[in-house]
């Protein structure tokens, strides 16, 4: 198939960017979206032009490195899938595809379609962990956990931290990401110990970094490649409310 690609080009973080149109020809429907971009980049290198910079790593939908806002949708038109797993059969021959980087104040563009997502790392560093003494592997059933909680925690833990929720949200809010990270611990006994501190610190960091607020629009859930549910946001709101009300005053 032949396509027109309308791609955001920006030489560096401080450079002024602009959209540039490219033609690609003879793309297979079986190609993944990133393979299609590889084809474009090879042709650019042949012409001695700068290839388009975009993030990717595993290319199997598990690392969360790939991004791209494709025709108004993070990770493109397919549901519950990352850009690297999305195939060209989702597009029509002759179509124009608009490709933009994630847009959010805390996600500045590094180059072209690549953005700096270290804001997410900062949120994790604020409390997205459990302070345990590492030692031998504990017995699998030493701590009993209800099946429902285990399942819900596992669903939350499916988050790969790609930032599609922020990209999709009209407010560039990180609530779905933070809620998933809060929930995966809040649901398990090992996580309860620091639950109150965790939710306050992570939400505090999220606000400080300049992410928007949640209007309960739920575009995040619709676009999440791991289909993380907004029920985790409700859980985080609950956790936060309880933490605030019960926390001792310093």
């Amino acid at each position, binding site marked *: 198939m032949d396509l027109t690609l309308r791609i955001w080009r920006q030489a560096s973080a401080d450079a002024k960017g602009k959209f540039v149109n490219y033609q690609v020809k003879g793309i297979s429907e079986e190609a993944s979206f990133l393979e299609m971009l590889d084809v474009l980049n090879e042709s650019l290198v042949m012409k001695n032009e700068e290839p388009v910079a975009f993030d990717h790593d595993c290319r199997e939908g598990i690392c969360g490195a790939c991004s791209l806002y494709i025709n108004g949708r993070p990770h493109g038109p397919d549901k519950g899938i990352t850009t690297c797993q999305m195939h060209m059969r989702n597009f029509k021959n002759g179509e124009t595809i608009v490709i933009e980087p994630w847009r959010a104040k805390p996600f500045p563009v590094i180059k072209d379609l690549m953005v700096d997502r270290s804001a997410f790392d900062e949120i994790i560093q604020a409390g997205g962990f459990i302070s345990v003494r590492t030692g031998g592997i504990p017995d699998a059933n030493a701590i009993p956990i209800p099946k429902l909680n285990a399942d819900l925690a596992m669903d939350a833990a499916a988050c790969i931290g790609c930032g599609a929720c922020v990209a999709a949200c*009209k407010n560039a809010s990180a609530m779905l990401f933070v809620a998933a990270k809060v929930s995966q611990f809040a649901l398990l006994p090992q996580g309860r110990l620091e639950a109150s501190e965790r939710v306050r610190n992570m939400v505090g960091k999220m606000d400080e970094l300049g992410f928007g607020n949640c209007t*309960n629009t739920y575009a995040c859930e619709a676009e999440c490649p791991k289909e993380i549910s907004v029920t985790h946001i409700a859980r985080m*709101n609950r956790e936060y409310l309880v933490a605030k009300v019960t926390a001792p005053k310093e």
Partner: protein
Amino acid sequence: MGKTLQYSSITKKIIMSLAGLFLTSFLVVHLIINLLILFDDSRELFNQAAHFMATNPLIQIFQWVLFAGFIIHIIFGVVLQIQNWLARPVRYEKKGSSEQSYFSKFMIHTGAIVLIFLVIHFVNFFVKAKFGHIESISYASGTYEDLGWLIVELFKDGAYVVFYVVAILLLGFHLDHGFQSAFQSLGLQHSRYTPFIKLAGTLFSALITLGFIAIPLVIYFS
């Protein structure tokens, strides 16, 4: 204002949702009283109720609580919205449309129109009722100010009726998202009850909207 900015995003939303639900409960009371005007041509029941609302000391105190509720809801709504706009300084060329609650995208717009409506409404009814001179009317049950007449006169103006109906419709859209959204903001989410809350919110918003709209339409066309 400075303090407002210091509250966390979730705290702001919790305050917003509580204020919103409080305003929603006020709408119910307001609508019930308004509907009384359609009850009898002499407007006795309505004038009686209005008299009660204007003189009961508890209601007089509550009036200020209501006023505060509006101010809080508006201030927090505007602050949240400004932060939301600032969070995306560079917009997308191709706008997304993956929202699952359409009216959530227009809360500030529907809210702003409702605010304009409120100011006009405030001048038309509240200020006139409080400070203006209103003719008295006598019934078997007693003599009251004829507030009902003020309403009937206003709703003879077609342009005002149109404005009123449009503003109430937008309030209905605001509520349709707002009602269920408030529960989510408070963390009140449950696989069994949430679908019910969503449905109840939509039905409730429709009922409130139709109720308020019916009054000017009935008066205008009769």
